């Protein structure tokens, strides 16, 4: 069972105050802590679990404009066998189509039974790369996968639909799955673990190694372009309750009473 898992590094913006860059097309990332995309973490874990159960190999792949060696080291520490990073400045501002094109160029010459991506990325949330990649590779795919069972030359997966409904789908291998959070419990990686994994194989390629042309790269090749970003106004809807915690609790209690609860 040879599995390729595609990963991305994203900034943690959950509790941060975000500032839009001068050109209006991105946010200032200097102060933000970056880590593996949440969905990708589950995808890496799922790949490693399958390998541990069935044998084979896991290859982590990243296409990035930045020096993301630490991202791939983390995947290796989790249990991936090797990693491939394609770093090129021109990936900055790339849309999903360009990223999937680059991934396709890496993956098409590798042996694989399954390719995993996260369902989407925490930053741009397009949820496109896996589906486009499957199209390029001409293999069947399933998105929003919450369970995988490997059978003889095929996989049976659960896809998460709406309203607590799932659908069971079978795919002939090779296939692409985009992995949903909650499918497993990703393992913790220690600094020691990352050090231990330092000896594992990590290949850094550039775009010309892949035979990618300039027309296939970056903002100019992207079909969907960012025109501008804006911050929604703070607390637009909510009336912010102020005062001591006790005063606020009293206000909340009276609001609840007025709504016919706590009465």
């Amino acid at each position: 069972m040879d599995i390729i898992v595609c990963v991305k590094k994203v900034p943690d913006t959950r509790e941060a105050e975000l500032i839009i860059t001068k050109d209006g097309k991105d946010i200032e990332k200097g102060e933000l802590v970056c880590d593996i995309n949440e969905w990708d973490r589950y995808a890496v874990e799922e790949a490693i679990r399958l390998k541990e159960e069935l044998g084979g190999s896991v290859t982590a792949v990243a296409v990035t404009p930045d020096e993301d060696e630490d991202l791939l080291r983390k995947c290796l520490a989790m249990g991936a066998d090797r990693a491939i990073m394609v770093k090129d400045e021109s990936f900055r501002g790339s849309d999903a189509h360009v990223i999937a094109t680059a991934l396709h160029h890496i993956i098409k010459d590798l042996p694989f039974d399954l390719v995993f991506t996260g369902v989407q990325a925490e930053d741009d949330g397009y949820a496109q790369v896996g589906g486009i990649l499957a199209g390029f590779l001409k293999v069947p795919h399933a998105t929003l996968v919450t369970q995988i069972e490997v059978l003889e030359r095929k996989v049976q997966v659960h896809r998460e639909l709406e309203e607590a409904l799932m659908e069971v789908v079978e795919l002939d291998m090779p296939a692409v799955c985009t992995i949903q959070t909650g499918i497993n419990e990703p393992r913790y990686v220690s600094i020691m673990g990352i050090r231990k994994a330092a000896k594992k194989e990590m290949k850094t390629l550039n775009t010309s190694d892949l035979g990618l042309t300039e027309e296939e790269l970056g903002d100019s090749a992207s079909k969907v372009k960012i025109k501008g970003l804006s911050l929604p106004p703070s607390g637009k809807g909510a009336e912010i309750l102020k005062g001591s915690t006790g005063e606020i609790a009293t206000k909340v209690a009276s609001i609840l009473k007025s709504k016919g609860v706590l009465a």
Partner: protein
Amino acid sequence: MREILVLAEHRKGVLRDITWEMLSLGKELAEKMEAQLTTVLPGYEVKSLADELSTQADLVLLVEDERLQNFSSMAYQQVLSTLITTRKPIITLIGHTACGIDLAPGLAAALGMPLATDCLSLTLTEKELTAVRQIYGGKVNAEVACSCEKGCIATIRAGVVSPWGEETRKGKVEVIQSPSLEGISRQRFIEYVEAAIGGVDITQADIIVAIGRGIQDKENIPLAEELAKALGGTLACSRPIVDKKWLPKAHQVGTSGKTVRPKAYIALGISGAFQHIVGMKDSGVIIAVNKDPRAPIFEVADYGIVCDLFDFMPVLKEKAKELLQRR
């Protein structure tokens, strides 16, 4: 005739709400672009759905085939790519749903068309599609653009556009021969499974205390549970709590969980991802507690409290106990 194409989404014999929402959006675009509003309905024995759709579209393309009985991204892709190639619509609208997420990227790749996903609103001109989307978990709005001169595809977030509700059109239904659907057997629908729901039914609660990532640790859940109990309410949660297996799926509010409408909803440490908000926005009153004043939950809340929820929970619990004792 220029055309706006909408994919009708249905499951288990019922058209899904997103279909009406997209038809409503499609109607606006069609009027502006002086285009025909067409909807495509792939399925099997779904003539009655086609008639329903004809009340809100100029033309319904009914593609019936036994192999289209349940959604399959491979089969749907062939149906749509055949239609799009021959009819050349300005834009094709698909729901940003479990169906659309599975279908749209592969379809766009096969057609070499630009694809804007998870759009909140669209503006169309002769040359360009501009879409508004949310990035960074809803903390930033992004305006994105792509060419529509050779057609384009957009997936639309569910629950954002209001459906028209009433009859706007008296459209025709045209039966279209299904394409060959070669190669689709590599992907097979087996069955639907209900997520295991047991014990609690959060949809029946008058008051819900819901926790999110801000609860930080499984060990802290009893604090929220005690608060819920003191208020006579039910404990619910957002997706990350279920992902971490801290609470069973039955407690989850949101797109892939339950939709709730309690009299009062208290959100503790929930940032307010859209997928959560759809499941609780129609609650009677929403009170949100979050450390981050820019958390998107405050957009939908009636009252916001910017503080550490661990400071707030015990105080509110005592207050509630006090009040209930006084009764």
